[in-house]
């Protein structure tokens, strides 16, 4: 009789405790899940490479469309949706921010102003790189990109358009040139929109400058160009 009573009590305690545990986890799951998202999903690597074409960069950028945005982030899971939607800014979720997205798409090296050459970063590599929007907006001579004219005749796909204000900035990549001061833009927009492809009038916006990466590998490579 005593054993039966104790068994019932144990069962009761276990049930109550489990309920409390479930309740607590229901109240606080996002924080716990977010804290582990990057460490669980971002195991990509990176390596130097001799060549990087605009078309390769464009393919790289377009694969991230539909994924998330993360201020200061850089990791994409590439499953077609934002794994961590509506998370707090800098909350450790999926996606790059606009400058990190440009850094990875342009295959830049992780050391500021480290000259020519390319460094490929896997989408799942959680790296932002050393360049903020300030850097793209006002590049130092040692940086591997430079300001160019905003005229359609001066730009090509995978050049960037960038603006910088005292409190915020943005940098976006041209996927396909449009008209009337607009273009098909691929960019890490913000925490609400994620990484998107949109037709936007950045080119005609007086706040924007055009900036081009230097040293692209010719599209005809390795065939003989001409």
């Amino acid at each position: 009789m005593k054993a039966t009573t104790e068994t019932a009590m144990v069962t009761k305690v276990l049930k109550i405790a489990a309920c409390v545990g479930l309740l607590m986890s229901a109240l606080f799951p996002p924080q716990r899940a977010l804290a582990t998202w990057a460490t669980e999903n971002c195991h990509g690597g990176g390596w130097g490479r001799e060549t990087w074409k605009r078309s390769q960069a464009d393919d790289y950028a377009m694969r991230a469309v539909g994924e998330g945005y993360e201020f200061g982030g850089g990791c994409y899971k590439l499953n077609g949706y934002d794994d961590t939607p509506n998370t707090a800014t800098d909350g450790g979720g999926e996606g790059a921010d606009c400058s990190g997205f440009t850094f990875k798409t342009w295959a830049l090296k992780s050391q500021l102003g480290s000259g020519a050459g390319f460094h490929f970063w896997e989408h799942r590599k959680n790296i932002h790189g050393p360049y903020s929007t300030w850097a793209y907006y006002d590049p130092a001579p040692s940086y591997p990109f430079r300001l160019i004219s905003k005229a359609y005749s001066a730009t090509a796909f995978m050049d960037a358009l960038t603006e910088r204000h005292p409190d915020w900035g943005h940098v976006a990549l041209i996927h396909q040139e449009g008209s009337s001061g607009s273009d098909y833009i691929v960019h890490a927009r913000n925490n609400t929109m994620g990484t998107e492809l949109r037709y936007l009038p950045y080119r005609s916006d007086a706040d924007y400058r055009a900036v081009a990466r230097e040293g692209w590998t010719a599209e005809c490579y390795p065939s003989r160009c001409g």
Partner: protein
Amino acid sequence: MSAGNSRRRLLVAGLVAGLAIGAAVGATSLTGASSEGPQGAPPVILHVARVLADPGVDLELMAGLACPGGPLDACAVDSAVAHVLSSGSTGWTDVDGTPDGRGFRFVVPGASVAEDGLSYWLEFAIGGGGHVTFPEGGAASAFHVVTTAGLPEVEWPGGFDFAALRASDDVVAQLRYGDDTSQVGRVGGVGDEQPLGPSSFDVAPDGSIHVADWVHRRLLVLSPRGAYRRTVPLPVSRPVDVAVGANGELAVTTLGLGATAFELGVDGRVIGRYGVGTGVAERIALTPGGPHVWVGPAQWAPVRSRVGVALPTEAQSRGLASAVPGRDGTVALSQDLADGRVAFVWARPDGSRAGAVLRLPSGVQPGVDYFVRGLPDGGAIAARGLWSEMGEAVALLRFTSGGGLASAELIAPPTHEMDAAASALRFRAPDEVLAVFADEHGIRFERFEVEG
């Protein structure tokens, strides 16, 4: 072991078990199942449809490509052709596309650009012998291009200076950022996050102002003088654009791929809900035939056959048009041409065609096409963005019935924080323009009477 210790250990064990179960459920719901991008998906065609061209002059068309979820090679586009039907001819001619960047360029010879215009559609050969057409209906829903034949050419009057901006006549309304009923939402504006305020507005026939507050999923309705009237809740996220119909009915679309368009009665009740099956929705217009959603540059898709009955995706694609009538049924449009010129075409009240070709000052480029609106006197008002390396402004243009330029003024560009950029500046009858400007506290609607 005491009974108390035993109970505490059981309690801890139960808590750990419960937390583990809950965490697993939480993580699953947050991260979802992993899946790779679609394989063998057809390419998405990115095309800025043409609506106007110069007769007898080569017409250049561009079509970009995107391959959902993968590199462009995965869509295996082998070649592209523009099928062109010159007005007056009986057969389609083919213009081969040449690879250009991430897409194709087509040059329609001037001989095919007849004075009465032409029609065209694009066809892309993909791997395995398949084809993708754009618009989807092919010849049956080809884009129609009218020409500038017979339109007078006018020059920008006097000197041009981006800094010589006309001040507004007055501030009609102001809305502060915030969560109260009569305030509008705003996000971002820190670090690398673009700020986004309310996404668009439209003006009703009675002059009242309807603001799309996507943050709070609602519309704010202001009187013609800017007094707060009411809030209309919306049953969707990201309502990016709003249009008001001839009788005060409303249409709203959400943003992006797979968007949803709504029709709402005057009382704000949802009377129709329609999936947008093609393109990236960003704007909406209410025509006498129902709502049309902007799904790409100069591409408007009908979304319903009658109130409450959605059009299937195929029918939406077949109905794609490069221009749609306004709520009063009249058509007016604008198109940038080569050599720094912009064409404007509108219908006079008697149905005849009017228009003009504006030659811009050297180095000045046409920007955002806000609107062209025909007026009862046969003339028109147009608002067109202008830009160069030196600056940016909006030209307010008043045309006479004969196409003469009665007035041309520059105003400051509206806020760039409205996501439906072309909906940040609107015509308000009989002869004024409302533009939205923003600062750190909120937005304000300024009124510009158009002279002439």
